[in-house]
């Protein structure tokens, strides 16, 4: 374990600014709000830097955890899933693999030219699904790492990710159908 005091805050945290900003932007869906979120995240991180201990995965998960908590506190408290939803999510967690069996696979598409559509589809997800999907897609974290950042059980991550991917796949499939992309490719 490396002591964070060996490196300055700027040396450790600033290189991850782009990642934090990207996640913030997709979480907040607005540039100005995303910038505020990033600033608040870095301010909190700076103040808490003395207590930070470099772990196996470095400072990035720590920054994202602060970002996520800041986002929840500032903008999404009222939108956080109520108890009933959480319970439902937990129930889905146990049967996630089976549920996935009945789910749709992603459409047969060339995603190369669909960056904007992918972003729009992600923006349309509910906060709890978007959070998981952002960490999964942006940083290619493991489920356990995502669970650590979001402070939820790994089963919840699997369940939410499953649903998020399903919704993302469906939106892209609908887009492809609307624009004749499926027919064009088939």
């Amino acid at each position: 374990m490396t002591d964070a005091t060996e490196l300055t805050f700027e040396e450790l945290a600033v290189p991850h600014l782009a990642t934090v900003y990207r996640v913030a932007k997709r979480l907040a869906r607005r540039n100005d709000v995303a910038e505020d979120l990033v600033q608040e995240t870095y301010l909190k991180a700076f103040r808490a830097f003395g207590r930070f201990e470099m772990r196996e995965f470095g400072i990035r998960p720590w920054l994202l955890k602060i970002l996520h908590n800041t986002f929840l506190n500032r903008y999404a408290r009222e939108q956080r899933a109520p108890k009933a939803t959480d319970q439902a999510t937990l129930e889905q967690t146990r049967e996630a693999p089976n549920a996935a069996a009945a789910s749709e696979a992603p459409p047969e598409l060339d995603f190369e030219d669909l960056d904007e559509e992918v972003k729009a589809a992600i923006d349309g997800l509910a906060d709890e699904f978007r959070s998981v999907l952002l960490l999964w897609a942006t940083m290619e974290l493991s489920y356990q790492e995502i669970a650590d950042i979001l402070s939820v059980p790994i089963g919840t991550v699997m369940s939410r990710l499953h649903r998020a991917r399903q919704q993302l796949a469906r939106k892209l499939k609908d887009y492809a159908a609307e624009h004749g992309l499926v027919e064009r490719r088939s």
Partner: protein
Amino acid sequence: METNEVRGLLPLLADGELDAGQAVEVEAVLATRPDLQAELDRWRALRQAAHRGLTAETVPAALQARLAATVQRERNRSRILRLVGPLSAVAAVVVFALVLQQGLFSTDRVGGGATFAGQLVADQFVRVHEHCAVSRKHDPFGVVGQADAAALIADASDCKLNVPLTVPELRGFAVRGCCGCLDRSKQIKAIHVYYEEDAPNQAVVSLFVTDGVVKIACDKARSDRVNGRSYQVIELHGTGLVKWDEKLRSYTMVARLNPQQLEQLANQIRVAGWLCSQPPMAMATSRK
């Protein structure tokens, strides 16, 4: 392994989240099922698409500058706090010391005032006793005959000693006056309360309380210990004088009585019971 089961595990395989045993099983199925392999490829492509779409964002230059300024400002603030923090503590200690010195914190004055106020001679006590208590009935604070004599004395002592002084009761005696005479140089703060006996001979007893401990210089002084209290005992021209130190103050009783009689009177006085930092009214109540 059933097709639906394999299909359900494809996203997990794409994410590398299957354990080695499951992965081998699924891959064995995929080797014979190109349709499922194609589906796995699409899951991977979806993740890559999401990754590509989300990582295309660039950080605005204005945000970078704003962040750098914020961090710098916070760093400066931390430095100032680190600098000001110890200074604040030092300032607090200095102010506290000044407060003690000025006697503004009466509670501490009772238990922690100046330990040594100075030296006096026995004659000074005797002269003030004779002059102010016996002859002149000196009472500049006008406490005699006042229902709130105790409060007046408390005010006087508060003024002189920076601590309100409750008048101790002496059985068979009544308070007849109070003044601040003792040290003409005014270097030693003192309060002088005198009592008159409710008896035909009407003995007059003076009690001096000094702010801090004083030494009384006298060749004829001796020490005596009664009920755990150490007295300095002096007899001078037919006048007795007993002094003891308690709670960082000196208490001196003077009267035309022999030292043993004075010691008996002095033993009635319990400093903790009548010298305190309570408001005068509360102390007056304590007199009953």
